[in-house]
């Protein structure tokens, strides 16, 4: 257990692996999986499974420390009542932790409590075979992109060598044959001359090949030009290595917990530091980078974790914007998320799997228009604002699906003004 705590990354991998496994082998391990879930939902904000203290003490070795499972259940359910009953160990725990009371969890059933206690007593250990699924899941495409290119160059080089060798072999064989038949030995012609001779003899084929190459170049040039200003795959290094996968994926925090204005404003807003501090006041150490990154939040907020107070000057965090739209575009999040009921992932990709946030969609106007042309809006009928418009459009298009575009969604002044 101790070793695990020193390797938080492995720990989280282990948890995830365990979860993964438990889904597969759900029949065998139901209660422990539930325990993990319950722990994450209710306890993880204040307790780590290691020895480190967050708001509450670390839970490593709880099995040996605590008086027993039944005591643990009672404590979790309502520690206040347990203390009031005069339980000595309960009072000791309370006093040892600066008399900060733990919340009561009356709503947990006995089965759930059992599962939870089982889980915290023996959290699953790391399983190496599951590792490939995690951590590096969202490596930058540019890094991956290098490999096929190198491979291609390698293959081409290899082919050229093969061709050169084969030419040599063929020449030798030909001369050997000539020698056998008593013909004079052919003079070795350079590959270039040979190619020219062949080209002169096969003009149609040559023309086709040249045409093909030119076409290829033109099309790749065209796409290269089209790519100017399109930053698909852009994943800048952020001042704090914020991990969306950990927060939104593993811990299942809702996007709107942090991006809280997405339904109220045109901007989803990058959370202010005080939002981070809601949780990180208690969580000073994370599973992937330990204390280093979270310390940066503390520095920005002016929080002194030792004193537990905001004593230092505030330093705003200068995040690097990942999704950039030009200044002449007015994109409204509330229109899309609140009114249009679009999922964040439609434009931002599945951030629940990204360690580093990156732009996954091109965010070009063509992309916008494409979506507006395709997206049907049958659900809008429920919104009285659209009632008469829908009625009129339904009459006009007689059964054709009504898309955003047909509602005026591709008109210039919807975004440009």
């Amino acid at each position, binding site marked *: 257990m101790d070793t695990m705590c020193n390797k938080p990354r492995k720990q989280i991998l282990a948890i995830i692996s365990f979860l993964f496994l438990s889904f597969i082998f759900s029949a065998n391990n139901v209660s422990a999986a539930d325990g993990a879930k319950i722990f994450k939902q209710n306890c993880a904000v204040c307790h780590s499974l290691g020895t480190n203290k967050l708001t509450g003490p670390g839970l490593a070795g709880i099995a040996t420390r605590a008086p027993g499972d039944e005591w643990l259940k009672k404590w979790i359910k309502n520690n206040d009542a347990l203390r009031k009953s005069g339980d000595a160990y309960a009072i000791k725990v309370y006093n040892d932790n600066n008399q900060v009371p733990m919340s009561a969890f009356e709503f947990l059933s006995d089965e759930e409590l059992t599962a939870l206690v089982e889980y915290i007593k023996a959290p699953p250990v790391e399983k190496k075979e599951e590792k490939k699924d995690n951590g590096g899941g969202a490596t930058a495409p540019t890094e991956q992109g290098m490999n096929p290119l190198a491979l291609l160059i390698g293959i081409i080089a290899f082919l050229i060598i093969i061709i050169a060798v084969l030419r040599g072999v063929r020449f030798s064989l030909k001369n050997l044959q000539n020698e056998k038949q008593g013909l004079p030995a052919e003079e070795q012609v350079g590959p270039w001359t040979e190619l020219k001779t062949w080209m002169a003899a096969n003009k149609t084929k040559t023309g086709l090949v040249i045409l093909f190459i030119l076409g290829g170049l033109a099309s790749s040039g065209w796409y290269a030009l089209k790519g100017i200003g399109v930053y698909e795959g852009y994943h800048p290094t952020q001042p704090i290595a914020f991990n969306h996968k950990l927060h939104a994926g593993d811990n299942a925090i809702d996007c709107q917990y942090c991006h809280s204005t997405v339904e109220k404003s045109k901007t989803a*807003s990058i959370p*202010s530091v005080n939002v981070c501090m809601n949780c990180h006041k208690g969580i000073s150490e994370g599973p992937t980078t330990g204390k280093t990154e979270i310390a940066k939040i503390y520095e920005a907020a002016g929080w002194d974790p030792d004193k537990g107070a905001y004593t230092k000057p505030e330093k*705003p965090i200068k995040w690097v914007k990942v999704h950039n739209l030009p200044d002449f575009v007015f994109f409204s999040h*509330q229109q899309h998320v*609140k009114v249009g009921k679009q999922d964040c992932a439609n434009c931002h990709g599945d951030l629940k799997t990204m360690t580093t946030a990156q732009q996954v969609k091109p965010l070009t106007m063509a992309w916008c228009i494409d979506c507006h042309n395709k997206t049907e809006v049958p659900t809008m009928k*429920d919104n009285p604002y659209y009632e008469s418009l829908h009625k009129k459009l339904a009459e006009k298009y007689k059964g054709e699906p009504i898309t955003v575009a047909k509602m*005026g969604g591709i008109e*210039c*002044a919807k975004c*440009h003004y």
Partner: protein
Amino acid sequence: MATKKYWKGLEELNNSPEFVQKAQNEFAEQIPVEKFLGNENQESNGTNRRDFLKFLGFSVTAASLAACETPVNKAIPYVVKPEEITPGVANWYASTYYDGSDYASIIVKTREGRPIKVEGNDFSKVTMGGTNARVQASVLSLYDSSRLTGPTANGAPATWANVDKEIGGKLAAIAAKGGAIRILSSSIISPSTKGVIAEFAAKYPTTKHVTYDAVSYSGISKANAQTFGQEVIPSYNFAKADVIVSIAADFLANWISPIEFSKQYAKTRKVSKDHAKMSKHYQFESNLSLTGANADERVPVKVSEQGKVAVNLYNAVAKIVGGNSLPSSALACDAEIAKAAKALAESKGKSIVVSGSNDINVQLVVNGINQMLDNYGKTIDIENPTYTHQGDDAAFAELVAEMAAGKVDAIITYNTNPVYTAPASLKFADAYNKVGLRISFADRADETASLANYICPDSHYLESWNDFNPKKAHYSLAQPTIAPLFAQPRHEGTRQAQQTLLNWAGNTTDYLAYIQKTWMEKVFPMQGKYMMFTEFWNNSLHNGAIEVGKGEGEVLATPVLDSAAVAAPVVAAAVKPVKEEPKAEEVKPAAVVNLNDAASKINAVKGGALELALYEKVGIGNGNQANNPWLQELPDPISKITWDNYITMAPAQMAKEGYLMMERQDREASLATVTVNGTTIKLPVVPQPGQAEGTIGIAVGYGREKAGSLSEKTGVIGQNAYPFVQVVDGTMMYGALNVSVANANETTEIAGTQIHHTLMGREIVKETNLENYKKNPKSGNHDEMLVTHSGVKKAATIDLWDSFDRPGHSWGMTIDLNSCIGCGSCVVSCTAENNVAVVGKEQVMKTREMHWLRIDRYYSSDMNKEVAKEEGVGAIDMYLEMENPAAANPKVVFQPIMCQHCNHAPCENVCPVLATNHSSDGLNMMTYNRCVGTRYCANNCPFKVRRFNWFNYNGNTDFTFNPSQDDLGRMVLNPDVVVRSRGVMEKCSMCVQRIQEGKLEAKKSEAPLKDGAIKTACQQSCPTNAIYFGDLNDENSEIAKLRKEEAEGRNYFILEEIGIKPTVSYLTKVRNCETTIEEGRKTSGHAEAKEEKEHA
């Protein structure tokens, strides 16, 4: 039925060959192609075609490579986000604008903590949601980088601690030896500020507070002291007046409370089929003012005659209602006066007579007229006075004399700039320098403050707490909408003047707490709605303005007047004790007013050959916002000239004296020197039809040498005319009766916006008069008919194209020409809302101003085709007559013109890149990022509303006066509207950002869009509610109902006969004229003869 012929400027009126030729050209300047191609040097030039291609290739490659790099944009969120701020969503705060003259209860739009727009507050019963250009522009003055960032001592930056210590010591020393301390300020209507001054005076008992207004109305209050025993300015209610007679009072633009009066006035000018009734407005004046331009009958009179008009009007009214006459002398305009008197007498108790004169005698006579007409308690309310102008000219003159005599030891100036505004005769600057300790609260080192020992800069009103009492029983609050821009640690910071005074008085209370205390003690007990003070305070702060102690609709108290005395020239006014009013201490028992004396004094006034009338412009006003480029670029509603003041002169007189007639605005104007009592300034002369002959007009508020950085960037704008103010019998007179004007034989350039485009004789403005309107609501609004193969048809119904679907909304706008007074509030509002660039004088001269919304001003002449037929005038003579400059007193109409969002827009067809096209809700959309700047659209626009960005006004160093080139000024930009760059076309978008926002709110709340939820910037700022906007598809919307009601009435579309189907419509102007248009050119003489016949 062709009615009046309007001409857009004298240039068009004169129709000189040069003008005609130039008018044919689309652009003011020829592109010098010939010159360029004919240049011999071209051939020997170093750059040949191949090199050019190389450069081109290189730059394209370099640009593409440069573009490949991902730009790194930083996003910096709050550390602790304030709870009330949602990024991207505006917060609105109620506040109050009061600069010592204009009062407006306002709401302030802030985005991410920055105030970016000011709108009127509908909760206010004083200004009723109205604003004017100066109020609209005041938000930019907040971001003025010329403001001081901390106190100065003898010109050097100092710290508050040191300044407080030094001044405290000096004041104590002065008080100890009994030396005089004076506080000189403009009118203060803040009960708390008055309390603070009282505290200061308690600490330093030798303190006296003198109120001085740059443009004073003390004549009115002094006259009321005599008539009613109350030295106050009454409340006027033009809304209740059927007949309005104004003798040179420009009450729609500047006089006392123009926003309030515009709102009231507009109510009397709304006509419909069911309500074919409107007020009748007579105006006697020298300059053609905004108010005069809106009058039904305008009579030009000389400055010296204005008082006599009042006397003769008194006599004429007395003749009808029965009463003694005052000694009088005959005037040329007696016939018009008689007509006005008749109308007044017929509307007894429902009329109003006002005078812009600051002469006590004139105001006494005007009071007498209103008393005879029984207007007090009905349209004029002396019991509920207005407090916004409390300047006491006599006290000020006394103070200056005291200072000059070296009897004043310390002077503190607050919100006043007398070195700039005081009359030359008072020699204020000399007197000021004789005071030992000179302290100023000015926010910048202006003309007065730069001579002070200490400047303790006040915060801007948008950064401050304050309270106001503009009228009896009306209170409002100002709250900060941004933390002080200049504050620790980067700057020493500004500090509210009230706080500074409190500190010096040794009171450590925070000024906010002080206001709350004042309200707790004084205002809270006056109301009965709220039981708890906190609740009362929070509600007052939320609403911004409250009315206490008087329920709406309650009958106003009528001053007790002896009915016998009313008719008599000697009026014994009732003595009414006034309780707990700010002016209470000044109330003295009323003396018996002898109007005979007043009339004799008025009659004794001798006019000169040339008289001067000073006036305030709608934009610059008294000059306190002279550093505001939005206001400088706002064209004067009458002359349409920007960035200048000038001499207005009757064209006939100009021609006589050989001044250049300025046939085009880019042509030069003659300079002339004006001398009054030894003070001389040199200004350009501008022809002004309607200017009374023998008079000239000059605007005050210009020639600010120390207003701020604008004058450094553009040179001093105009000349200061304040020195011409005369002190006559203890009050300031804003004019002079003996002026000499001499041609300086020099010329200068003037930037006007008036004649960029010709009217070509089309019926752009339609007009009728009330009599005809009653008979036929469609009078004056005739349809253009065309003969077709299927018979005669309305031109507008013939269409080459199919109409388009408007399945969702169909936005429409209607402008009531009868309500529009041309004040220009909408122009500034549009500038602020849409980030419209300021281009400066030079570009305006090149017809390149960027205003999306302009107000065209047309003068009329009375000749038309019917008259010509009747009088047998030939066609050529008729056209000559139509353009006859003898129209010395033309009628004026204003017409706001913005993009008409034509449903078959000519601009859309010609754009080669589809940068402008039509939306399904009826908007003509302009996509800047698509525009390549061919300007075809502007060429094809029949309304000339498209504006081209000839330069990058936001970056080019030739345009440093543009606010968006300044780190501070940039903060005023609306983040919801793109800042356009060089080479793109722009135009009115019908505030599409507001439409999008309003629609989204409706969508989010899952309800159909409410009518009125979306207001365009121009509509919202209009003080006369002349602009209607809404969804034409919504049958219950105001605009849909209006269009339906007026379909066979006043509604018309400009140029609809060319088949463009505009979305914006106009409502025919209705004039309450005596002569019908059919009677045409018949002069007042004719009409009078007719009238007399009727009488007989």
